C-alpha cells in the first residue's frame, strides 16, 4: 500500500517536473510545477511530516505559484517558437557533469555501506504522542531561536527590495 502510494506520487512528481522543463508555454510550465508540488506534499505525508506537507502546499502552491502566474500574465508571455530544450551546448556538458556527480553521490548513499548519523529521539511513537506540529514547534522556537529571528530580516529585506524594484519607473 505504501509502495503503491509512493510510486504514484513519485511518478507524478517526476513526470510533471519533466513536463515543466519541456513545455513551451510558461503557463503550462507553471501548472506542471504546481502538480509536482502536490505530489511532493503527498510524499511528505507518507514521510509522516504532516505539518510540512500542508505548509508546503500553502507556501508553494498557494502563494509562490500564484505570484508566478501573476507575473506570467502581467508580462503576457507567449509560448516560445523554438524548441524549448536545445541540447548539444555548453549547458548540456555542465548538466551531464552535475548529473554524474549527483548519481555518484546517490550510489554512495544507496550502497550497502550507507552512512546514517546517530539516531535522534523522535521515532514514530514519540511523534504520535507529542503531535507533529507541537514537536516541530518546540524545536523551531527553542533551539533555532536565532535563525528564526534572522528569518524576519530576510523577509524584511525581500519586502523592501521588491518594493524599490517594482516602484522604479523606466526613464
Amino acid at each position, binding site marked *: 500500500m505504501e509502495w503503491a502510494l509512493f510510486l504514484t506520487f513519485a511518478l507524478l512528481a517526476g513526470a510533471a517536473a519533466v513536463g515543466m522543463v519541456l513545455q513551451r508555454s510558461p503557463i503550462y510550465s507553471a501548472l506542471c510545477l504546481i502538480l509536482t508540488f502536490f505530489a511532493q506534499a503527498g510524499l511528505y505525508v507518507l514521510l509522516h511530516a504532516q505539518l510540512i506537507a500542508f505548509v508546503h502546499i500553502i507556501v508553494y502552491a498557494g502563494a*509562490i505559484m500564484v*505570484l508566478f502566474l501573476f507575473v506570467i500574465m*502581467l508580462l503576457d508571455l507567449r509560448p516560445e517558437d523554438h524548441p524549448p530544450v536545445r541540447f548539444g551546448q555548453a549547458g548540456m556538458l555542465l548538466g551531464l557533469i552535475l548529473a554524474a556527480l549527483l548519481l555518484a553521490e546517490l550510489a554512495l548513499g544507496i550502497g550497502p555501506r550507507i552512512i546514517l548519523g546517530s539516531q535522534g529521539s523522535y521515532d514514530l511513537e514519540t511523534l504520535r504522542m507529542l*503531535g507533529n506540529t507541537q514537536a*516541530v514547534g518546540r524545536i523551531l522556537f527553542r533551539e533555532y531561536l536565532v535563525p528564526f529571528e534572522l528569518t*524576519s530580516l530576510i*523577509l524584511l529585506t525581500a*519586502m*523592501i527590495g521588491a518594493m524599490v524594484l517594482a516602484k522604479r519607473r523606466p526613464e
Partner: protein
Amino acid sequence: MLVEYLPILLFIAAAALFAGGSILLSSLAGPWRPFAEKLEPYECGMAPVGMARERFSVKFYLVAMLFIIFDIEIIFLFPWAVIFKELGWFGFFEMGGFVLVLVLGLAYVWRKGGLEWDEPERAAVDGESRTVPTEQRAGTGFR
C-alpha cells in the same frame, strides 16, 4: 496514523469524478451549433478589439508579493500558536520581535505608497488634484 489521510484522497477523487462527469455529460447533452460570432468573446455586442491578454498594472504583482511575505509569517505563527502556552513570555517576546520586524516592513511599504491602489488618479478625476502633493503622485504612478 497515515490511514487518516486516505479519506482525503478518496474525497478528492470523488469530487474530481463529479466535476469531470457533469462537465462531460453536459457537453454530450447540450446542442452544438457554433458560428463565428457566437464564439467571439463578449464585449457588449461589439466586435472585440485586440487580444485580451494585455499587460495590466504592476499593482497586482505588488499585492501578490506582499502576500507571500505575510503568508510565510503566518506559517511560522501556526506552530507557535499551538505550543504558545508552554513557551510563555519567552515565546511572546520571541514572536513579538519577529512580528515587529515585519510590521516595520509593512509600514515602509505603506509610506512608500505601495498600499494605495489608484488614489492619485481618482483624486485628479474628482477635481481634488491640488490636495495631492506632486511628489506623492509621481511616486505612486504606475506604468
